[in-house]
């Protein structure tokens, strides 16, 4: 009895080889897509910090009313100290996903998460 590949013509073999090549190229393309996520911080609309979300860090950010402290750890990027009276930014929780933002409005500090693929969220925007 002949083995199965003996039933393939040259054209069949070419087709299979092309499909396999396409598969390998597709895999390589998907692996080369950007995976890292960045923490981008601006104070008074000026970029002052750009770091990886995967790297633990603590940054003091000087703004018009004092120092805001940004902590980057396994939870994400969080504001852990703020000079403003209401400290709303400290209650915002961690920013993790692409597009997440934290803001200390009185101190004009804006923290944004950029790069990498965002997880599908339950909603696009939060009304608060």
């Amino acid at each position: 009895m002949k083995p199965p590949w003996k039933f393939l013509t040259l054209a069949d073999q070419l087709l299979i080889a092309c499909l396999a090549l396409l598969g390998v190229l597709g895999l390589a393309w998907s692996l080369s897509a950007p995976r890292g996520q960045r923490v981008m911080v601006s104070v008074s609309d000026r970029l002052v910090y750009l770091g990886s979300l995967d790297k633990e860090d603590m940054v003091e950010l000087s703004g018009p009313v004092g120092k805001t402290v940004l902590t980057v750890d396994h939870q994400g990027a969080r504001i852990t100290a703020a000079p403003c009276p209401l400290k709303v930014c400290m209650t915002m929780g961690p920013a993790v996903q692409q597009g997440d933002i934290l803001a200390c409005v009185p101190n004009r500090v804006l923290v944004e998460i950029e790069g990498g693929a965002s997880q599908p969220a339950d909603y696009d925007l939060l009304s608060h």
Partner: protein
Amino acid sequence: MFWNRPLALFLLAFVAILAWWQSRPSDQVLHRTQFLMGTIVEVKAFASSSAGLDAAMDAAFAEMARLDQLLSRYQRGSDVERINNAEASIDVAPETEAVLRLGLDVSKKSQGAFDLSLGRLKKLWGFDQEHPHVPSSEAVHEALKGIGPEALDLVGSQLRKRHPDLSVDFGGIAKGYIVDQAIDVLKRHGVESASVNAGGDMYLLGYHQDRPWRIGIQHPRHPNQALDILTVHDRAVVTSGDYEQFFVEDGTRYHHLLDPQTGYPAGSSQSVTVVADSVALADALATALFVLGPDKGRGMLASYPDAVALWVDAAGQLLASEGFNAYRLDP
């Protein structure tokens, strides 16, 4: 023959479809954030081509900055500053006239639950200052003198304060009006799908790519939880809650949504979410309905048939107005 083989044809067709799917043009997305109006303004716009999207975004932010200069009480030379300093009637800009006209309408229909003339009272509490505090009852009483739906007369573009020392504050409406104008600018630039979000006051233009926008409503007592999820397009969504600005004094929590009847924080709601045709209307209604609470608020909402609301009352119970469920992701 090779081309007669169904398997080969199927595989080729499959590869061709995959290649088309990967190469089809996807929507361009432009996302920009900026400090404006004392908050963070986020604009996200979708288009099949990036041509013109940048210019549309520039124009929208420029318009918001221009209107902020005109309508903010913190900006020197703004119409609000001019009104507050005026002793006789004054001529206001068309944009200020539009804000006043809508604000006075909501004020009258809510029987003063929404009030444009609370400038002195808000300054007294100092929620936007470094040290907010509970004012004396005498000071509150004094700040309430002359306020109310009849405190301002608007005839054409002429505004007259009934008491010269009245102070206006557009805090509960101007942000919404400015977002509406930004949306108009984006539309004029051909943008059909975008969101403009000014600290939670938002308008959702068109669709979020291939589906309506999904808008979470913040739980008033659990900051990281969404209370509900709405699906909307071409609508404004605004939430007013007692958790946004507050301070604690002598063990009591005081929030920034003041009841013009008493001069103290309103106590019948934890939050109110309004869905309406314009952000200015949703903004003003959210404040009025928060102060009124669900029982009185439902009656007042009947004056605005295109607007719907969801209350979280003082006890934490959810109460929706008629028609609200149509916007819920899971009715």
